[in-house]
């Protein structure tokens, strides 16, 4: 396999910078403070930290999953995501099955990401796909890159907030025109759990095979082994422990390993609370800031009927579950990057990159608001929710990412 031969493995030792483990102080301290306030804050913080860590270690980039398919004919990341979706599908089905044992009754598990599916889903997915490729990272991807020190991702996140502001100002129009009347299609209501899981797995398997077929369409090339400095083979238990630590903290994980770990976190969070999502919270930040500078978004319709990443408004405290989750992703990724000795402030030197990240962010933010979520909430948590909106959003996003890839080809 071409991709295996080029899998990044680097030499160097962990113990030399053992002091780097001091970065763990921040997540641990915040955890105990959060625990005194409310258990859910601590749990969302811990899951956010773990998610940031997992995504950084495996470089699980949703954008590259789609973009590399178009630009490089590489499907390794997307296949990782597909495997992760498969794992989460079974986990979510177990949880939903205990909430709604008989789906034929018409009941839908309240917290599952079963969302109205219609024009807003398609338009949101298309915009999101274009925007994320331009910005060089989706919303959750930008969160983890912020922690790794990418200045462009901070700019993209500011753009996302502007985009979400624009969407929230137009939300009531979208609500009246399409979202309010769009149907919510939860597959088990028609097919039962068994049928829904079988259909989901079949579609995932088809997508998996399609990436293999697509890779084969690329012109073949000779793979030359990459030269690297080789570490000495382990000689004793101490070396073995060091090697084990390096596999976790220093070497790159495969996308599949990262996606499976992320799915397990998602399942655990759903068991206790609800599936992962990051956009609803960023939408709340946007609305809160807008109100503070005298541009309130006003009353948004229909919010209490929507699960997932619908826009939200600030209640009595800024420190919500979502805040802990999003903050946790940034801090978790920062922690992982420092331990892997990969943290750096990365400052783009070409001014056009800032413009591009900001504009990409705005388009992506608007799309995320409209499509009721990002790659996490409307895709990675929606397909395992056995919801039709997850698949519609995925196809729209893939199409948008294709268009985005055509644009950036010209921007190099």
């Amino acid at each position, binding site marked *: 396999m071409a*991709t295996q031969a*080029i899998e990044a493995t680097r030499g160097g030792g962990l113990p030399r910078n053992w002091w780097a483990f001091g970065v763990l102080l921040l997540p641990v301290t915040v955890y105990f403070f959060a625990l005194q306030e409310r258990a859910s804050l601590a749990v969302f913080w811990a899951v956010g930290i773990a998610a940031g860590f997992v995504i950084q270690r495996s470089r699980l980039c949703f954008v590259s999953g789609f973009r*590399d398919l178009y630009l*490089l004919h590489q499907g390794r990341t997307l296949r990782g995501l597909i495997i992760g979706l498969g794992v989460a599908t079974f986990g979510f089905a177990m949880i939903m099955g205990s909430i709604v044992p008989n789906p034929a009754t018409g009941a839908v598990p309240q917290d599952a990401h079963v969302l109205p599916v219609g024009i807003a889903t398609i338009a949101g997915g298309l915009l999101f796909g274009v925007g994320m490729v331009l910005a060089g990272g989706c919303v959750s991807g930008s969160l983890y890159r912020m922690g790794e020190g990418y200045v*462009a991702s901070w700019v993209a996140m500011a753009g996302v907030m502007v985009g979400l502001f624009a969407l929230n100002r137009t939300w009531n129009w979208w609500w009246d025109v399409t979202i309010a009347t769009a149907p919510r299609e939860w597959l088990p209501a028609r097919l039962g759990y068994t049928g829904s899981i079988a259909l989901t797995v079949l579609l995932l398997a088809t997508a998996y095979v399609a990436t293999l077929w697509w890779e084969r369409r690329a012109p073949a090339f000779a793979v*030359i082994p990459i030269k690297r400095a080789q570490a000495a083979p382990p000689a004793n238990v101490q070396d073995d422990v060091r090697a084990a630590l390096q596999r976790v903290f220093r070497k790159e994980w495969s996308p599949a390993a990262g996606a499976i770990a992320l799915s397990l976190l998602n399942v655990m969070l759903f068991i206790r609370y609800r599936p992962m999502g990051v956009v609803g919270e960023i939408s709340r930040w946007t609305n809160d800031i807008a109100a503070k500078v005298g541009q309130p978004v006003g009353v948004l319709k229909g919010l209490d009927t929507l699960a997932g990443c619908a826009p939200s408004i600030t209640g009595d405290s800024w420190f919500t579950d979502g805040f802990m989750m999003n903050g946790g992703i940034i801090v978790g990724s920062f922690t992982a990057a420092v331990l892997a000795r990969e943290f*750096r402030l*990365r400052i783009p030197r070409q001014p056009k*990159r800032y413009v591009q990240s900001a504009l990409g962010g705005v388009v992506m933010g608007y799309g995320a608001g409209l499509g009721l979520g990002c790659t996490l909430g409307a895709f990675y948590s929606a397909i395992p929710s056995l919801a039709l909106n997850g698949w519609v959003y995925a196809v729209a996003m893939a199409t948008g990412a294709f268009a985005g890839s055509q644009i950036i080809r010209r921007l190099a």
Partner: protein
Amino acid sequence: MAESTVVPVLDVRGEICPYPMLRTNKELDEVRPGVAELDVITDHPPALSTIPPEAMKRGYGVEIEEVREGEWKIRLFKDS
């Protein structure tokens, strides 16, 4: 090669995906077509798995060296 010359350097630090790879391709295809050796400096870890296959498609061998924390030199070379 007859005489040794200074290896040209392409510095793509600060660039996010996919630009380290796209700019390397552009350097190999348009700026210095057929160049025998090229050093690409990057601080973007994912570029370590996108630049090599693209260079291999163009017939280059690849050597990766970690210059310092979070910074790598990817040497691309043609065996002559």
